[in-house]
């Protein structure tokens, strides 16, 4: 509010109304203040953001291609473009394998290569292991390899990214659908509400896991298939709170006043009622996100998840279970999943406090 107080409101152009919508209002600032009061949540948010940003640039951190190659006076960007071995004066017109000892030394003789921190992609099979796979942690692989000789760190980074992105997309889309359905049910009520509620009861009792298993025998479930199937059921989690909030708010006098003004239903829903319902939705979101991540992980663990070869935390856990002699697999999987879920829950607690009306208006 300080910024607004200093500036005389009269001097502002009328479009300031639009700007005011984007700027956090006094309520938004109070919420931010409440969120920051929870130190643990702030730390969790920071750590999670850093981890997410890092994993979003996974290709620059863990890859079996150098980030940049200087060869014979020319610049190459292998991370972003494919080059043939012949480009580096090799013999065959096949894709360059930069980890090939011959190519590696050849590039070093005629220029240089800048490698990422971890020289393995999540798909890279390390043929030069001096142990049988799974290899224990060591200089070559900080956290060891899995039973197919792939670097665990690389797989964790990519797996984290795919889990979080899956969680985000699933949470956001199910929030949009769930809020929409809840809004319509709560605002219009009556028969529509009754029918949709009964439909949800029937729909909600469908066994998700069996549907996935049946599906897995028909198509090979990829990221989007899984997202779609889980979305069929996860949107219902939001309907209850939103519907309740709408049933309550539609009786408020300011909604009546808007109807008396002749405002359209859609506009009343969006401008007057939805902001109230969003509080409950946003409060739920971090917890739903954690739940979505867990669902994907458990499907991967059971083998009904992402296609084979995908980097996935659930698959890492499954490998840990299958290879009890290689505890680094299970321990790494546990620590990463535990950390990720804890961070999400801590953030969720902060968000919940920030949106708590009892604290907000004290």
């Amino acid at each position, binding site marked *: 509010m300080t910024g607004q107080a200093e500036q005389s*409101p009269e001097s502002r152009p*009328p479009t300031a109304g639009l700007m005011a919508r984007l700027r956090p209002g006094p*309520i938004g600032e109070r919420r931010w203040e409440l969120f920051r009061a929870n130190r643990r949540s702030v730390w969790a948010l920071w750590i999670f953001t850093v981890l997410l940003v890092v994993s979003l640039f996974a290709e620059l951190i863990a890859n079996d291609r150098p980030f940049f190659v200087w060869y014979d006076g020319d610049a190459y960007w292998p991370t972003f473009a494919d080059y043939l071995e012949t480009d580096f004066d090799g013999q065959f017109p096949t894709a360059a394998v930069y980890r090939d000892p011959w190519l590696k030394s050849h590039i070093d003789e005629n220029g240089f290569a800048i490698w990422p921190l971890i020289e393995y992609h999540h798909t890279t099979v390390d043929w030069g292991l001096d142990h049988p796979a799974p290899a224990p942690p060591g200089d070559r692989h900080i956290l060891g390899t899995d039973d197919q000789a792939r670097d665990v760190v690389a797989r964790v980074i990519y797996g984290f990214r795919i889990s979080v992105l899956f969680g985000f997309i699933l949470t956001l889309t199910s929030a949009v659908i769930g809020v929409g359905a809840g809004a319509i049910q709560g605002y219009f009520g009556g028969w529509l509400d009754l029918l949709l509620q009964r439909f949800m009861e029937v729909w909600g009792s469908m066994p998700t896991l069996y549907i996935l298993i049946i599906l897995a025998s028909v198509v090979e479930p990829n990221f989007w298939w899984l997202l779609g199937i889980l979305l069929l059921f996860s949107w219902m989690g939001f309907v209850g709170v939103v519907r309740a909030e709408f049933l309550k708010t539609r009786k408020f006098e*300011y909604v009546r006043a808007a109807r008396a003004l002749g405002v*359209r239903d859609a506009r009343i829903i969006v*401008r007057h009622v939805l*902001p109230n319902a969003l509080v409950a939705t946003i409060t739920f979101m971090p917890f739903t996100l954690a739940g979505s991540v867990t669902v994907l992980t458990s499907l991967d663990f059971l083998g009904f998840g992402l296609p084979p070869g995908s980097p996935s935390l659930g698959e890492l856990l499954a490998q840990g279970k299958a290879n009890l002699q290689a505890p680094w697999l299970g321990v790494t999987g546990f620590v990463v999943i535990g950390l990720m879920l804890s961070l999400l829950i801590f953030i969720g607690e902060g968000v919940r406090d920030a949106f708590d009306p009892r604290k907000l208006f004290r």
Partner: protein
Amino acid sequence: MSSPILSVKDLSISFQRIERGVRQVADVVRNVEFELHAGETVALVGESGSGKSLTALSLLQLLPYPHAFHPSGSIAYRGRELVGAGSSVLQEIRGNDVSMIFQEPMTALNPLHVLEKQIGESLALHQGLVGHAARKTICSLLEKVGIRDAGTRLSAYPHQLSGGQRQRVMIAMALANKPDVLIADEPTTALDVTVQARILDLLKSLQLSDNLGILLITHDLNMVRKIADRILVMKDGRLVEQGETASIFAMPGEAYTRTLLFAQPPDRDPPERVSEPVLNVRDLRIWYPVRKGLLKKTVGHVKAVNRVSLELRPGNTLGVVGESGSGKTTLALALLKLVNHEGSVMLDGKPASAEDRQSIMKMRRSMQIVFQDPYGSLSPRMSVGEIVSEGLDAHGLVPDIRERDRRVVDILKEVEIDPNVRFRYPHEFSGGQRQRIAIARALVLEPRILFLDEPTSALDRTVQVQVLELLNRLQRLHGLAYVFISHDLSVVRAIADDLIVMREGDVVEQGRAGEIFASPTHPYTRELLSAAFDPVITTAVDSGQESVDG
């Protein structure tokens, strides 16, 4: 008089909160001193925010400590200090020696407990009464507060009682342990006028029989005049004046007391009688079918509004009075097409029954409404400018942003709100200001008819007067027709030209306001008027008037 039962000396109340590591202290009540004797009624009056309720709550140490604290002062009950007393001492006194009744009987009673349990709880706690003995005591208490057939009502839940009966139960609970002091915080504000009168009668007669000291917190000065022996006037957390009721009413010492006591709704010149009514309603009915049985056969109707006919002329005000549940608000909502209805409604001589969106929108432009609760009727998440311009938006009027902003500024100036505040949010405004904003929102569409649903009931007397003055001015300026819905007859008397008295959906009396106020013909109208304007008559409690509560 003997020594006081309750004496308050130099009492101050402050609230502290820690914000960004800095302790902030707000002083809300400062240096209040008064005494309460047995058998005496002391009224604590003041506007909302003057600290009267906080003072009352602090007497029983019911404030949110340690968030709240007392920088100075003492509260002594028969010589025992209550400020800072241990919880065992307080528990012994609360509900036993000093009892309290609250404003809203619906929320003050636990909706999941039957009456026997509600009242029995404090009996068991303080007197150890259980079982048959407790039941007998509860019955006699309920009879004492005027609830008939107490024996059969023991297993009733609060929602099965009317507002007046709930308040009686509250009083029975408060009196269960024969306290010396009763603190009544706005005990009748939520009730209808005729019920209010009966509750006051009840309190007065209980006071006589039990020699109670009553501390009455209220903003209703009519009530104070009827019942109080002494008056304490509070303003901004300070006691500005105290004295005998008669002498304060006769000769208030402070200017503030004078405005508080004598703030009267402004006079207005009677408008010209235009022949052509802007709104003509014939036989309006809102009946809700009552369905029973497997096939949902309609077995009867709940008649929310039954055959109402009225005419409204430009520049005139039609008052609609009646108790809660009489169908006043439903009538307004029906005319605004927010509730389904039957009957003919003519707007400007044309039937306003078309269902297509275009004609509904046209009708919405000519009729607008202002609601009772200035806190509930403004969306908390929209700035004042957005709230006021919403009507223009909805009708696609004034698409130009600058022009629209200019209109908002104009209309805010018209309702005497500084237009610079249009970027602020409703929670920064007082009740009166919010009601002005609600009026601005309605007026921005330049309607011909404005429905005012208890527009001043939630406001303090002095603010009420200002809002009424504003309404009068706007009516003269724009030739607006008002439908003024209220249960406050003194306000209606000041503003209405015509009057409809409603009861349980029926119109019991209708005509020129002056004539009805001068010579009411229907007994119900007479009862309403006498409850509102006559001094209290102490009657026996069990005079069998309870049936009218329900």
